[in-house]
């Protein structure tokens, strides 16, 4: 039976079919749906871990404990998990372990577009690159088999267009597996220098075996067609090559670390012109060149951004490999006369609890060290109340550093961080502020969910991935335990309270934490009656548009509130100086 599955759903299915019984992840686009899908199957333990490092550690434990294991994350998650990963390759596995890294070329939903294939090489582990959902499913099973056969964690690397594209997949019956027994083996698993040194040597030996395997792997194959042009490619790029160069011979690599050198050499020898087509970094290309093989053209595909068949065709024409983009990039209609198209940027939802905090920060003209989540939208117009963001959890350390660099900035700088992000990697930053006597003021935007990635549970929500009740961490008690004495909880949709709290805490010469306590508006769907505009009082001053609520607009020089969109959060009432916005009346039944 064939089913239309996204790459992520196929990976979950592949895990089930190949006997995975433990899975761990932290959400992140484009990887999130893997665990969400896995959690739907009975007989699997699947958890949201607080961050990716913990997820990998849980996975290592599960493998040692004898269960086939899958751990998933977005590309930048692997940075967080790199520490355990780099040594996991030394100890190897008991039961099979696959790490799914979902990369995001083009940064559809990410802060960078790092190419995580480099991690596989760096950590010296096998790397699989599926090019559609069927391969994504099949490669989970292959990864687990290889993991056990070569005693190593295996990376399965997808990209947005593999994870989030749907294609037909042949469904098979799950293979039940017995738990392996736990074995105490300190020479293998206790990485003190004495034992680590021989494991380092063993790792090279295992890599040599993997290199040999690569030559005969069923996922590395040559498709002979016209031999005047040969293309080496992997992952989603394979699909683009088939569309743009339907007649070319292709060496399709599904197993890309270590590369099958002999296979590449014999492919090169069998074609007149050789090129490499890959997205992002020249990962394969550089290694092929290091083999001393001549490429007809090098570096002809942009290293930045997402590839697509149109870009590939244009690059091939420019490089002189084909003469016209003909079959692919056609001319559409002449749109020279098209009216200007205003942008449609994402915005905080109507009633979003973050909005009050960012409006207050903007009013106070503070330096805002930001973090990652829905609230990062508070940095875009019209609010524009975030100065920087780097990676999850960075806001607190950055604010602390700004204060240490120039104490005069201390009283003007706040860190803003979401609840999921704080629990992911903000706690240690705050610990540093306390320990090293900083003065940072930290605002935790506690909307009780991981909203950005689609509302996942986390250790503060009181529910697990499976939806079961769980202990919810008490943020206030947690930050007090770290040594923060000034902790207060505010309602972020009460502007006066929010502004006053921020001012007072900035003035204090010690670390302070403000917990902005209000659930995500999409989560509660608690809709109050919509706000009304009193046309007699509205002067058309536009102040209310500065909060960036999509329910508010200006029509005929007067404010308008779209009653179908307004949640009645009443934030706008507090910014209008004319009293022209009026609280909606409860409808009495």
């Amino acid at each position, binding site marked *: 039976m*064939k089913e*239309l599955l996204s790459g992520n759903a196929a990976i979950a299915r592949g895990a089930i079919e190949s006997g995975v019984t433990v899975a761990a992840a932290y959400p992140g*686009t*484009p990887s999130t749906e893997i665990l969400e899908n896995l959690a739907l199957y009975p007989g699997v333990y699947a958890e949201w871990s607080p961050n990716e490092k913990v997820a990998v550690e849980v996975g290592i434990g599960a493998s040692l404990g004898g269960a086939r294991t899958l751990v998933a994350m977005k590309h930048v998650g692997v940075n967080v998990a790199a520490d355990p990963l780099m040594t996991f390759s030394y100890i190897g596995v008991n039961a099979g372990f696959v790490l799914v890294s979902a990369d995001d070329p083009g940064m*559809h*939903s990410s802060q960078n577009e790092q190419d995580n294939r480099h991690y596989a090489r760096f950590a010296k582990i096998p790397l699989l690159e599926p090019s*559609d959902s069927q391969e994504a499913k099949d490669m989970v099973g292959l990864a687990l088999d290889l993991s056990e056969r070569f005693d190593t964690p295996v990376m399965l690397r997808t990209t*947005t*267009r593999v994870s*989030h*594209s*749907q*294609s*037909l997949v042949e469904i098979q019956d799950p293979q039940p597996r017995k738990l392996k027994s736990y074995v105490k083996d300190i020479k293998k698993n206790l990485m003190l220098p004495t034992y680590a040194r021989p494991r380092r040597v063993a790792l090279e030996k295992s890599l040599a075996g993997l290199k040999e395997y690569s030559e005969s792997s069923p996922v590395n194959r040559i498709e002979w067609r016209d031999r005047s042009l040969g293309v080496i490619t992997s992952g*989603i790029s*394979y*699909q*683009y090559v*088939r*569309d743009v160069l339907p007649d070319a011979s292709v060496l399709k690599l599904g197993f890309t670390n270590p590369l099958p050198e002999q296979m590449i050499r014999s492919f090169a020898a069998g074609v007149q012109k050789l090129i490499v087509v890959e997205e992002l970094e020249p990962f394969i290309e550089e290694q092929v060149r290091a083999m001393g093989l001549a490429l007809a053209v090098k570096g002809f595909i942009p290293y930045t951004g997402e590839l*697509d*068949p*149109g870009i590939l*065709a244009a690059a091939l024409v420019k490089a002189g490999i084909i003469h016209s983009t003909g079959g*692919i*990039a*056609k*001319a*559409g*209609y*002449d*749109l020279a*006369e*098209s*009216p*200007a*198209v*205003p*942008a*449609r*940027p*994402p*915005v*905080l*939802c109507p009633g979003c609890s973050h909005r009050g905090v960012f409006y207050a920060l903007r009013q106070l003209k503070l330096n805002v060290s930001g973090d990652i989540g*829905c609230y990062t*939208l508070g940095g875009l*117009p*019209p609010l524009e109340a975030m100065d920087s963001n780097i990676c999850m959890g960075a806001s607190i350390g950055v604010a602390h550093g700004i204060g240490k660099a120039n104490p005069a900035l201390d009283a003007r700088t706040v860190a803003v961080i979401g609840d999921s992000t704080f629990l992911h990697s903000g706690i240690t930053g705050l610990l540093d502020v306390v320990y090293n006597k900083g003065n940072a003021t930290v605002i935790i935007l506690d909307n009780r969910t991981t909203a950005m990635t*689609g509302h996942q549970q986390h250790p503060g929500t009181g529910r697990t991935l499976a939806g079961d009740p769980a202990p919810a961490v008490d943020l206030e008690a947690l930050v007090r335990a770290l040594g923060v004495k000034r902790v207060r909880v505010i309602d972020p949709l009460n502007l006066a309270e929010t502004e006053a709290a921020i001012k007072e805490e900035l003035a204090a010469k010690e670390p302070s934490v403000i917990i902005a306590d209000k659930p995500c508006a*999409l989560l509660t769907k608690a809709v109050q009656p919509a706000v009304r505009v009193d046309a007699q009082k509205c002067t058309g001053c*536009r102040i209310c*548009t*500065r909060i*960036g609520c*999509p329910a*508010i*607009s*200006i029509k005929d020089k007067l404010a308008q509130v779209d009653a179908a969109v307004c949640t009645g959060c009443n934030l706008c009432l507090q910014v209008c100086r004319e009293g022209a916005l009026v609280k909606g009346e409860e409808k009495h039944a």
Partner: protein
Amino acid sequence: MLKPIDVLMVGVGGQGTILASRVLAQAAQAAGYDIKVSEIHGMAQRGGSVVTQVRLGEKVYSPLIVKGGADILLAFEKLETLRLLSYLKKDGVLIVNDQAIDPVPVLVGAAEYPPNIPEYLRNTVPGTLVFDATEIAGRCGTAKAANVVLLGAMARRLPIERAIWGKALAERVPAKLLEVNRAAFAAGYELG
């Protein structure tokens, strides 16, 4: 080998493009086509643009449609039609919902929502079909079925039989909403 048929669906988060693409995919699969669907998730919930690409044919490789390559552009919102119009191939089919959803720059007066989009589209793309799917859906029982009206209008342009569409709809739409959606689909089909 037959070249795949490329369908681009564009709209704004919350307009039901996803359900429409599910029904299309279901129908295409039942009709025996290979199929790929690609959508960008992420910030759609926060009012951003939504683009779903559907390719069906004997064998489909790339999940992505190239500029100038779409056989059909099905637009749930007028402004998004303009934004993605460069993807429509010459002689392609353009079906547009006559609905405007103001983006924030327009709401706050920083930009203007272009007037007369339907006129521009009709002049640029011969045979453009523009209608108010929301209003038609309302007459069928719920304005929320506008997505299915649009789907119905497109259905006739695809080599998939009417009966297969009916089945696909039944499989993808919750039972209690099926009657309304059947009516919405039929109303769209009449127009298409």
